[in-house]
């Protein structure tokens, strides 16, 4: 019995490796099947987006691999020029970048105060913020929409920046408070002895040290805003000049119905940035998503 255990852990000869492989073959089969199942939907979309319209509508995407090969980038050109996707890509960036920077900076101020300043009610206030973490954002839609209507902020970037900042703040404060609170006290003491102010300590010491936490947080918040549909639908009210890609695509779904050549390419354009972030910053990305998944 013991012998097999060792063989399983460290296959030495070719024969042992072969035995191990055969014994594990159901495992590999199941796992590879699952991976293929998970890939097929995205792959199908991507291949379809590169096929000419008549072919998409008459044959399955898997037939694209048989001769004659017929691929085109016309769908992408059309969607960028005519269906407002180019503008929407820009709008998505315009919405996502400030909606990421604002909550992180504001949360850094607050987290610093929560960690390294003393004031009455500190713990209670922090607990209230933790409570706000999971409040469904649906609870805020009507009052904020009415407020924005009164202030003329509906359909503007400014309005949606503030809304996303508010939704992102509790989580950002929670995460940064944990990180900044964990920085060794000695660092602060020696900085104070050198005559540094709180302002200098925050920008010269705390923020640079916090880069790993901020990176995860920034990726999470950016992706959350980039992929958001509901908040944009409500506060931007379907104004095409400010609509992000998610809103434009969902309008395409409703208006074109079966216009697969537009939908597939539009959906893929919206996925490019998240996919690049995912593959280039996988570690921070996964850490951010895991930490942020409790957000309301």
């Amino acid at each position: 019995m013991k012998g097999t255990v060792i063989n399983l852990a460290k296959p030495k000869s070719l024969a042992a490796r072969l035995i191990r492989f055969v014994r594990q073959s159901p495992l590999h089969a199941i796992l590879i099947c699952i991976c293929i199942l998970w890939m097929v939907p995205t792959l199908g979309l991507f291949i379809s987006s590169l096929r000419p319209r008549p072919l998409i509508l008459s044959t399955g995407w898997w037939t694209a691999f048989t001769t004659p090969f017929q691929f085109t980038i016309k769908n992408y050109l059309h969607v960028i020029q005519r269906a407002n996707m180019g503008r929407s890509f820009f709008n998505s960036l315009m919405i996502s970048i400030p909606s990421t920077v604002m909550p992180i900076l504001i949360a850094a101020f607050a987290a610093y105060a929560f960690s390294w300043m003393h004031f009455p009610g500190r713990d209670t206030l922090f607990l209230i913020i933790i409570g706000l973490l999971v409040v469904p954002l649906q609870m805020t839609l009507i009052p904020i929409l009415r407020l924005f209507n009164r202030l003329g902020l509906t359909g503007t970037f400014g309005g949606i920046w503030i809304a996303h900042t508010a939704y992102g703040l509790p989580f950002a404060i929670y995460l940064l408070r944990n990180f900044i609170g964990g920085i060794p006290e000695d660092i602060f003491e020696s900085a104070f002895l050198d005559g540094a102010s709180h302002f200098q300590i925050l920008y010269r010491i705390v923020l640079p040290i916090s880069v790993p936490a901020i990176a995860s947080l920034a990726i999470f918040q950016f992706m959350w805003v980039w992929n958001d549909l509901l908040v944009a639908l409500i506060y931007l009210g379907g104004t095409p000049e400010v609509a992000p890609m998610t809103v434009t695509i969902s309008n395409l779904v409703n208006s074109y119905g079966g216009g697969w050549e537009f939908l597939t390419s539009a959906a893929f354009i919206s996925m490019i940035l998240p996919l690049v972030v995912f593959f280039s910053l996988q570690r921070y990305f996964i850490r951010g998503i895991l930490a942020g998944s409790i957000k309301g």
Partner: protein
Amino acid sequence: MIFTVIVLALIAIVGVPAGLTLYLFFVEKGISKLSPKYRKKMRPWLWLAPALIILTVFLLYPVINTIVLSLMNEDSTEFVGLKNYIGIFTESDMLIVLRNNALWLVFFTLVTVTFGLLIAVLTDRVKYEAVAKALIFLPMAISFVAAGVIWKFMYEFKPKGTPQIGTINAALTSLFHSFEPQAWLFNPKINNWALIVVGIWMWTGFAMVILSASIKNIPKEIVEAARIDGAPELQIFVRITLPLIKPTIVVVTTTLIINVLKIFDIVYVMTNGILGTEVIANRMYKEMFNFLNFGMAGALAVLLLIAIIPVMLMNIRRFGEGAKRR
């Protein structure tokens, strides 16, 4: 046109952080004139001010306001008591909404956790673990909207006899000759399940990554010892692995529940809630913009909040203890 765009981009990328930094700079400058005692008292509140103001105006006040609105009529001019809530639990189309949310809650959560666990256990034993995990986690990166489009295409339906361009109908008709192509999103018997599959496809990677990390934390010696004693793999899993990762399973499950309660985008993009697929968040959107019934919309939001309150209290207890222990 181009000019305004450039100005906007500049404001967005440079102006926002610069403005916030300037705020803090002037705060420090302002309080430096105060006596040290007042400075120490004022400083935390001024550092917290931007956060507290935004949280109060855009989270705390709206929550209270929504609760009040949920007790009023369509245009919030008249107090109607619990009428909206009674409506939710008695009107037949509202009951369908509640049923759908319950379906999502139970099956989405159950299947996602099970799949996540299964894949975590399987990938733990192979060399290409990292690649397999990346592939399965990938859908978490894309928007629900893109996922909706992807799966709408998967579910595409053509009448029997014509070539199927939707992957699922094509695969099933070529595998089983007696299979009739289905309009997955339009057949009320199956459309909810078709939507839930999309959610599972997106979130399994999430459950997998967390559970896998937890499995890797189990000391190797325990499992090895059981193997040497000749325990079959299945028994090792049930008797050792499962009890040890139970706390993580609870965390994953609660997280999935918080998220599935608010599910909106998938339904909005794929069916827009027709043919019996509506869920609470979609109904709320319709109450707001189609029926202009803000009382009912508010009541639906409060319902979501009530469902999440136990998790909220759990968080406060768990994270609050951690914060004090520092």
